[in-house]
C-alpha cells in the first residue's frame, strides 16, 4: 500500500569555489578569463554545477527585463510543451520585444541539458497590479512561474544582465554557452559547485538570482531554517531549498525593498559578536544592537563567503568569523574576488593590492561613473 508522507523539506548542502571580476570603468570583456580562473579551482567543485552571472551583456535591450528560462522534461517534446505553457503565461503578463533560444554548443558535451530560452520583456500590468512597481511585478510573476508552471524555470530576470548555469564543471558550462565568444560584460561572477548530493538539476546550479541581484556562494548556513521561516513571511517562496536562494532573497528584501546600504546589510547578515558590540561607542552600539534585534532571523549563521552581483556593483562578504575564504585584489580598474589567490594571479599575474577582507566586512566594487 503506498504510504502517504508528510511534506518534508530536504535541504541541499553544498560548498564551492567562487570568483568575480569587474572592470570599474565599465569596459566590457569576454568570459574567457573568468572561465580559466574558475577552472584553476577545479578541485573545489565536483562537476555537479557551475554557473556565471554577466552584467552589461545586453546593451541593445538594456531597458527590458531579460528572462532566461529553462524548460525541462524527459524529451524534447516535453520541453517544448513546457515552453508553450510558459509562453501563454508570458504573453498575458508581458510585452515580449524579442526572444530566441540561447545559443549553445554541442548538447552531448553536457549532461541532460534543458531547453534554454531568453525573452526581453516589458511588464504589462493590469488592474490592481498597476500599483506595483515594475520590479515587484516582475518578482511576483517570476515566483508564479517557478512555483506554478511545471517544468519551466526562470533563472535570470534582471536588465542588461544574465545568468548562465548548468550541471557540469563551470568551465564546461561556460564553453556550452560560449561565454568566451558571444558575450562581453563589465562584471562576471562564477561559481563551481560541490553539492553533497546529486539532484543533478540545471536549475540547482548557482548563481541564484532575482531581478539583477545574483549570488554565488560557498559554505553552509546552519540558520537556513530560521532564515527561510522569516523570508517566507515576506512572500519569498524558497523553492530551491538552498542557502544561496535565501541569501539572494535576503539581499533583495534588504537592499531593494527596504533600501538599506550594503554596509548595513552586511551587519545584518554577518553582525559583529556581542563582545565587540559591547565595546563600541554609544551610537554604534545602539545601531548594531537595534539591527541585531530587528533582523535577528536574517543572521546567516555558519560558514559562508559570497559574491553578490548587482547592476554596477560587485560585493564580497564572508561570515562574521570568516569560516570561508575570500581574497580580494585590484589591478588598475579591475577588481577581483576569489576563493583562492592563485586564480586571480592566473589571469592577472601582477596586482596592485591583494587582501583577505575581515569577516563580516563587505568589499564593494562600483562602476566609476555610477551615481
Amino acid at each position: 500500500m503506498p504510504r502517504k508522507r508528510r511534506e518534508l523539506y530536504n535541504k541541499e548542502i553544498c560548498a564551492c569555489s567562487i570568483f568575480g571580476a569587474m572592470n570599474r570603468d565599465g569596459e566590457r570583456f569576454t568570459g574567457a578569463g573568468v572561465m580559466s580562473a574558475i577552472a584553476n579551482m577545479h578541485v573545489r567543485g565536483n562537476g555537479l554545477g557551475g554557473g556565471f552571472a554577466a552584467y552589461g551583456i545586453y546593451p541593445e535591450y538594456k531597458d527590458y527585463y531579460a528572462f532566461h528560462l529553462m524548460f525541462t522534461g524527459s524529451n524534447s517534446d516535453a520541453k517544448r510543451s513546457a515552453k508553450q505553457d510558459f509562453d501563454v503565461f508570458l504573453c498575458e503578463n508581458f510585452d515580449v520585444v524579442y526572444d530566441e533560444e540561447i545559443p549553445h554548443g554541442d548538447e552531448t558535451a553536457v549532461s541532460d541539458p534543458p531547453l534554454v530560452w531568453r525573452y526581453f520583456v516589458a511588464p504589462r500590468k493590469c488592474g490592481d497590479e498597476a500599483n506595483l512597481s515594475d520590479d515587484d511585478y516582475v518578482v511576483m510573476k517570476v515566483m508564479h512561474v517557478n512555483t506554478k508552471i511545471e517544468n519551466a524555470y526562470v533563472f535570470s530576470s534582471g536588465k542588461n544582465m544574465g545568468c548562465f548555469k548548468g550541471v557540469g564543471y563551470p568551465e564546461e558550462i561556460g564553453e556550452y554557452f560560449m561565454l568566451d565568444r558571444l558575450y562581453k560584460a563589465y562584471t562576471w561572477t562564477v561559481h563551481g559547485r560541490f553539492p553533497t548530493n546529486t539532484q543533478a538539476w540545471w536549475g540547482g546550479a548557482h548563481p541564484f538570482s532575482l531581478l539583477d541581484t545574483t549570488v554565488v556562494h560557498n559554505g553552509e548556513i546552519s540558520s537556513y531554517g530560521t532564515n527561510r521561516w522569516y523570508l517566507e513571511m515576506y512572500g519569498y517562496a524558497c523553492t530551491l531549498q538552498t542557502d544561496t536562494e535565501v541569501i539572494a532573497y535576503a539581499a533583495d528584501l534588504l537592499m531593494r525593498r527596504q533600501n538599506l546600504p550594503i554596509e548595513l546589510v552586511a551587519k545584518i547578515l554577518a553582525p559583529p559578536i556581542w563582545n565587540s558590540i559591547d565595546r563600541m561607542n554609544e551610537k554604534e552600539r545602539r545601531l548594531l544592537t537595534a539591527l541585531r534585534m530587528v533582523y535577528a532571523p536574517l543572521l546567516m549563521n555558519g560558514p559562508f563567503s559570497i559574491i553578490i552581483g548587482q547592476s554596477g556593483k560587485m560585493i564580497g562578504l564572508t561570515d562574521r568569523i570568516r569560516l570561508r575564504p575570500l581574497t580580494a585584489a585590484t589591478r588598475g580598474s579591475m577588481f577581483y574576488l576569489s576563493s583562492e589567490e592563485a586564480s586571480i594571479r592566473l589571469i592577472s599575474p601582477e596586482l596592485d593590492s591583494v587582501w583577505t577582507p575581515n569577516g563580516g566586512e563587505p568589499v564593494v566594487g562600483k562602476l566609476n561613473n555610477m551615481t
Partner: protein
Amino acid sequence: MKSFVFPEFHIIRDEAKCGQCRGCERQCAFGTHTYDPVQDRLISDDYKCAGCQRCVVFCPKDAIEVRPTQSPYRQNASWTREKMEDLKKQAETGGVILTGCGNDKPFRIYWDHIVLNASQVTNPSIDPLREPMELRTFLGAKPDFMEIKSEGDDVQIETKLSPNLTVETPILFSAMSYGAISYNAFRSLATAACKSGTFFNTGEGGLPKEMREQFGKCAIVQVASGRFGIDAEYLNCAAAVEIKVGQGAKPGIGGHLPGEKVSGEVAATRMIPTGTDAISPAPHHDIYSIEDLSMLIYALKEATNYEKPVSVKIAAVHNFAAIASGIVRAGADIIAIDGLRGGTGAAPKVIRDNVGIPIELAISSLDGRLRKEGIRNRCSIIAAGGIRCSADVIKAIALGADAVYIGSAALIAMGCNLCQKCYTGKCNWGICTQDPRLAGRLNVDIASLRLSNLICAWSHEISEMLGGMGINALESLRGNRDHLRGVGLYEWELEVLGIKGAGE
C-alpha cells in the same frame, strides 16, 4: 556544601565470610572501602561506589555484594531519579554533567525489532561447519567497472584499483585512543586485531612508536581535530587513515583529555608536554566545509603516496546521508558512521543522551542514498554505535553496511561493566585509566585472548546465520534487505529501514 544526592549503589558485606584481607580496599580506586583497625572490620561508603563490580569479582571470600539502590523518591514518570539527581549535582557544582559509555536511554533499539530469514525447501541452507563459508571483506573504493586488456590467455587489468583493507571478518575495533584507555587495553586491542585478521583503530591519541612495526599493518590511524601524535611516519606505518569528524556519543562536540590522564607515555605518543590538557576542538579547524574536507582527504593521500584508503568517520545526525554523499564525492574511500548509542570515554551527558539518530536507520538511509546517486561502489560503509552481538552485525550488513566497528562490546570482553565512570580515570578494571597501578590489572595476554575469542565466536555465529539463509559468502548478504523483516515497527520506520513487516 552538603550534597543532597543519594547513593546509587548499596554495598552489603557478609561479615561472617569477610576475612579482613583488605582486598576490596585495594581494588576500589574510588576509595569506597576502608579498614577500621579499631573494630578490625571493613567499612564501606556507599556514596563513593560506582557499581563497577570489581571488588565483588575479586573478593577471595565472595563476601561482597553491590546492588543498585531503589529510588528513594516518590514515583514520578517525569521527574525520574536520574533527572533529579543530575539537577542536584549541578546545583551543587555549577558544572556540566559528564558521563562515559553510550546513550543508555530507552530509545527504540531497532535490532530487536528486526528478524532474519532462513531457507526452507526452495533453497538449501548451508552447514558452515563443513561447507566453505566466506566472510572476507574489502573495505575501500571500488571502480564502477574494470577495464582489461587481453591478448590470448593473458589478461591484464587496466583499471588502477584503489587501495583496500582486507578483513577476514566484518568486525573491526572502534577508535579508542591511548590516553582515553590504558596502554594495556590499547595493546590488547591491537594484538587481538592482528590475530583475528581485522583492524583496530588508534583513535586520536597516536600510535606508540614501539608498536608501529608489529601492529601498524592492522592499525587504522586516526586524524582528529586535535591532531595529536600525527606526523608522516605515523600515517605511513598504518594500514589506513581515518579522519574523525564526529562521534555518535557526542556529535558536534570536541573532547578533552584532562591533564591528569596525560602521563609521560601518553604525552610522548601524542607528542605534547606531560600534564597538559589535550584539547580536541569541536571541528577540525582546517575543515569548515565539504571542499575543505576534500582537501584534507587528499592531503592525507598525498602524505601516504596514495597507498592507503582514507576513511571519514561521522556521527549519524539528521542530514548525515547527504553529507556522507558529499564525503564520498570528496574522495573518502570508507565512511564510518557512528550512531546514537556509540560509546565514549567522556561526554557531556546532555549531548550523549539527546543528539544523533539510531545507527540502524542511519545505515539504511546512507546505503539507499549512495545507491540512488550511483556512488555506493566508491566507498565502503562501516557502521558503529550499539553493536552488541553477532545478530546485530549481520543485520547491519543486510541493511547495507560493509562491516561494523565495535567499541563497548570489546571493552566488555576485557572486563568493563559499563559503570560509565570512564571520565574519572579511575577505572578499576584497568581499561579507562592511566594510573599504572590500575592499568597493570589488565593483562595483555588474557585481555587479547578474550577479545579474539569474541571475534571468533561472533564470526562463527555469523556463519551459522548466513548458512541458514543459504548464503555462503558474506557479500551476498550486503544490502540484501529481503532477508530482514520488521516486527512492531511503524510504517515510517519500515520505510526508512527499507524492509517489509514480518509476514508481508
